[in-house]
């Protein structure tokens, strides 16, 4: 079921259903500075918390002296791991079944780890007091990469775990090792690539924080939290802290970005809550930028050895990948329980071949925990990067144009639904169509001709890079996907008021994705209630139905589907009410958005607003009053958005500086609810993909000191260095999603880094350069060129 155009609009501008470029309604308050972010939350008698962090990467704690800090005027309490341990809260479970120190008791295991906390009457005093806490550390050697961690003489980082005798966090494999080996043995060509996807950080504009307000009289804990998954966090708080779940209310206010950084539970949340419980007053904790960068969920840090087997005709016959993952000191990835390397096994990408094998090893190091974050769809970023780099190298190795090589190996449109070598069931796609469109938009032939002329007058070399990604987003189904045991469903509750206005309550939580705008459009599409009459509520666990939250591009695939389904269920009830009002049989009614009329008698009609009023004032006997309902959606499958990105660069071989001359991104995310919002998501994602390929990384020195703890060292691109992106689309609806939509939030970060890197390497082909790891900083280009023979 392939189309190449967005379906025609079914609703008027006034109703503003799907397909309308409705302006983001949440932006009115944001651009006026009237949002309500975590740091805007101010409660009476609120105290302020600051966290003392380890200055070293690995050390035994000999002693902690808090007496001077305690004595400082304005300090209410100083909390250490010892105090937390008295309440059984010195350690907490992670989302991947490990445990993590809340406040260190025995050792510190990474620079920036939480050691103690000060609660004071104002934030300045809290920070002044930090310098009055004296910790005696006995330094231990630091492990700063997984190769070191696996070495025989490596210090044991997790010596508190009884069963742990080495630094291995997990070993995991999937696919058919035997079939893959056989294919490699029979291959005409083997293409290999060793590459490193460096550690980066999601770096949301707003760092993480909490305002915990435990009412001593009622025991009710209201916790304002920078949370992408407030319901899951409520349950985990109940399990961790032993608080009764009905007494926990998580409120996730406006979030200034998340990108996966606000999925884990951080020690600061737990300490602030414990402090409020013990002191009986609200406690606010909010990180500084540096604290966010050094201690919260990072992304990637993934060493990948990949290979493709090709037959004599240049068809891929198999892929293998061996992965080494730097997990940091705790295995704290937020990812589906049964998949230890996230959904990396989507690494067969857009290509049709029968065998694949993936082997992953996760290693503890003396670095902050994390790995799954930053618009990555559970490590699909790493997977997509590896296959798209391999495919480009394969084309070069056998002397075939990279576009032609892809065309030869793509899964064909008629093969969908397609079962991949690692077991995914791709729902729909037309990879040839998306690539053809991208090549046309970029004028591929023109740039290849320009490139063939050799260096430009200014000495710069032209390079053209492609990436044709396929993503897997929208977890679950509940059979395969859970996080910490919680099945990955999501829900929507729709209440249509008597006057025909409505409130939609969701278990997901926008961090900038525009849910308030777009989810109202789904209701408008299905019920004909103008989108402007529908308010969308998220993030308050006392007032929204349960859900797993927003990450991994799952809101539209899951909560969007729930919204469509509940809207349709209410429309079914509305039909019965309409029949009652029109004194006609339900079978004789016709629906158009916002109105039922009697077939053949269009003047006999009732609007959805009339029907809503009747639901509370004039409903037939035997029918329940009201026009409200809730639906829990368990997706039958994931959705598989895809696209082709093409980048044209000019590289100055003398300085290594590269600039993007043109970038075309053709995305197919199925039916677009709001094309403008989709394009905004893609533009942001491309910017982040460009950042990773061009400038972003967090490194560590040999002692485990973090280089990248502020915006001088950790680079976030501005509009100045970000290239212009030309966006295009094809539309291949998801056959199993109620409105044919797929997720899109992460496509561009997943797909684009390989396109940028492939472009630079393509420019350096005369020098025979086959790999430069990201970020492709000018000095790395320069080094690659220096080491290479001069081009002929």
């Amino acid at each position, binding site marked *: 079921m392939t189309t190449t155009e967005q379906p025609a609009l079914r609703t008027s501008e006034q109703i503003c259903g799907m397909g309308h470029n409705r302006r983001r309604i949440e932006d009115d308050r944001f651009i006026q500075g009237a949002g309500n972010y975590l740091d805007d939350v101010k409660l009476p008698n609120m105290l302020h918390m600051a966290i003392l962090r380890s200055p070293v990467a690995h050390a035994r704690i000999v002693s902690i002296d808090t007496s001077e800090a305690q004595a400082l005027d304005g300090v209410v309490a100083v909390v250490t791991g010892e105090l937390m341990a008295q309440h059984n809260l010195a350690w907490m479970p992670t989302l991947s079944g490990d445990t993590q120190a809340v406040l260190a008791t025995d050792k510190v295991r990474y620079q920036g780890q939480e050691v103690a906390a000060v609660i004071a009457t104002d934030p*300045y005093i809290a920070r002044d007091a930090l310098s009055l806490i004296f910790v005696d550390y006995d330094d231990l050697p630091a492990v700063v990469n997984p190769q070191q961690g696996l070495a025989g003489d490596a210090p044991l980082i997790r010596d508190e775990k009884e069963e742990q005798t080495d630094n291995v966090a997990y070993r995991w494999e999937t696919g058919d090792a035997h079939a893959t080996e056989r294919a490699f043995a029979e291959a005409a060509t083997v293409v290999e690539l060793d590459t490193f996807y460096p550690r980066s950080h999601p770096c949301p504009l707003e760092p993480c924080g909490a305002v915990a307000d435990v009412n001593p009289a009622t025991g009710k804990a209201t916790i304002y939290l920078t949370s992408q998954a407030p319901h899951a966090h409520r349950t985990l708080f109940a399990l961790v802290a032993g608080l009764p779940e009905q007494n926990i209310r998580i409120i996730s206010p406006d979030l200034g970005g998340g990108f996966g950084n606000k999925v884990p539970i951080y020690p600061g949340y737990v300490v602030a809550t414990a402090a409020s419980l013990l002191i009986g007053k609200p406690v606010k904790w909010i990180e500084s930028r540096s604290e966010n960068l050094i201690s919260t969920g990072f992304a990637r840090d993934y060493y990948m050895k990949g290979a493709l087997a090709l037959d004599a005709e240049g068809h891929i016959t198999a892929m293998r990948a061996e992965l080494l993952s730097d997990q940091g000191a705790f295995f704290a990835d937020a990812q589906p329980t049964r998949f230890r390397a996230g959904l990396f096994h989507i690494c067969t990408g857009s290509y049709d071949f029968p065998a694949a094998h993936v082997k992953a090893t996760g290693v503890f190091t003396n670095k902050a925990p994390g790995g799954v974050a930053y618009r990555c769809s559970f490590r699909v970023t790493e997977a997509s990067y590896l296959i798209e780099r391999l495919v480009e190298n394969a084309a070069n190795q056998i002397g075939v144009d990279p576009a032609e090589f892809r065309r030869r190996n793509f899964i064909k449109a008629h093969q969908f639904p397609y079962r991949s070598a690692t077991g995914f069931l791709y729902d729909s796609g037309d990879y040839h169509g998306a690539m053809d469109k991208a090549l046309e938009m970029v004028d591929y032939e023109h740039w290849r001709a320009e490139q063939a002329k050799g260096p430009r007058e200014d000495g710069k070399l032209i390079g053209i890079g492609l990436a044709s990604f396929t993503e897997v987003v929208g977890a679950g189904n509940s059979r395969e996907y859970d996080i910490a045991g919680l099945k990955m469903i999501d829900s929507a509750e729709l209440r249509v008021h008597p006057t025909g206005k409505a409130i939609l309550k969701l278990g997901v939580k926008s961090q900038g994705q525009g849910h308030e705008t777009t989810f109202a459009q789904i209701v408008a599409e299905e019920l004909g209630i103008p989108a402007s009459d529908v308010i969308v509520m998220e993030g308050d666990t006392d007032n929204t139905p349960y859900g797993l939250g927003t990450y991994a591009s799952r809101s539209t695939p899951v909560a969007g589907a729930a919204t469509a389904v509940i809207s349709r269920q209410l429309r079914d009830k509305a039909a019965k009410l309409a029949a009652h009002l029109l004194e006609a049989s339900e079978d004789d009614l016709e629906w158009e958005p916002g109105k039922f009329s009697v077939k053949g008698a269009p003047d006999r009609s009732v609007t959805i607003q009339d029907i809503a009023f009747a639901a509370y004032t004039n409903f037939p006997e035997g029918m329940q009053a009201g026009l409200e309902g809730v639906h829990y959606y368990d997706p039958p499958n994931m959705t598989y958005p895809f696209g082709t990105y093409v980048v044209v660069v000019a590289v100055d071989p003398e*300085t290594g500086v590269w600039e993007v001359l043109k970038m075309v991104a053709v995305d197919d995310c199925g039916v677009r609810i709001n094309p403008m919002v989709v394009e905004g998501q893609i533009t942001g994602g491309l910017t982040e993909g460009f950042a990773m390929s061009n400038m972003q990384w967090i490194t560590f020195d040999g002692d485990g000191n973090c280089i990248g703890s502020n915006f001088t060292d950790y680079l976030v691109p*501005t509009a*100045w*260095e970000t290239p212009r992106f030309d966006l295009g689309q094809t539309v291949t609806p998801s056959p199993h999603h109620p409105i044919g939509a797929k997720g899109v939030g992460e496509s561009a970060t997943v797909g684009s880094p390989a396109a940028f890197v492939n472009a630079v390497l393509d420019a350096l082909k005369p020098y025979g350069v086959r790999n430069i790891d990201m970020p492709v*900083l000018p000095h790395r280009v320069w080094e690659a060129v220096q080491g290479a023979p001069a081009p002929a």
Partner: protein
Amino acid sequence: MYPAPFDYVAPTSLEEAVEELAQRGDDARVLAGGQSLIPMMKLRLAVPAALVDINRVPGLDSIQEANGHLAIGALVRNNDIVDSDIVERTNHTVAAAAPWISDPIVRNRGTLCGSVAHCDPEGDWNSVMLAVGAEVVARSATGERVIPIADFIADFFTNTLQPGEMVTEVRIPKYTGRAGGTYIKLERKVGDYATAAVATHLQLEDDGRIAQAGIAMTSVAPINRKATEAEQMLVGQTPSAELFGEAAQAAANAADPETNVRGPAEYKRDLIRVYTRRGLAKALEIAQGS
């Protein structure tokens, strides 16, 4: 981002300002644009006992032509320099460097004089000042003195101001005759410090030979460094690609970069070579057109 406690005074005259500095000595820091000082205080890397905020002192916020030089006051913001017709007309190196100072937000507040006084070897302005031969005017409660820029820069983050002295003005020589210059900088992104950068300045004789040459480098030594040997190779010579190539190599030899997140030392040294060559070519092109 909460700084440690500090005193704050905001004098309304230059006399009052230098009097405050005289009384408070080394414990006080002058606040003009604050674009380096305030972040350092927020990170508690700088913990001054007092700030003497000179933003209410009149007469320090203008760019003036006087006695063959440009006088840039202590409260002239970097964006004032970007927008200045006088600068554009009279000194190409300064005009070329101004848009490369950090980012627009920092340029709105940050000052040239503050950057010069800060003596951060990764700062851009002192390379420009060295290349064009600027002078620094320092004022204290007891008087005023004029310090050549090369004597003003003492070391890494260290100037030769005496306790109680503050920078009130920087004097930049105006071009005469056929002159040109530029500033070429590699930064990883807007607002980043230079990976490496080179300021160049050429003054030509009537017969086309080089009368004066200025070359100075950013981020490749403990201080902004003048490439003296390269300058001397140029003076009195007729410009040519070979000559510029040799001078560029001499400049690269004078660089003493460090390996860090912005790249290895060898790379930065080679960047100095390329940028010096390109910078001299650009300076010559401007000079020959003027």
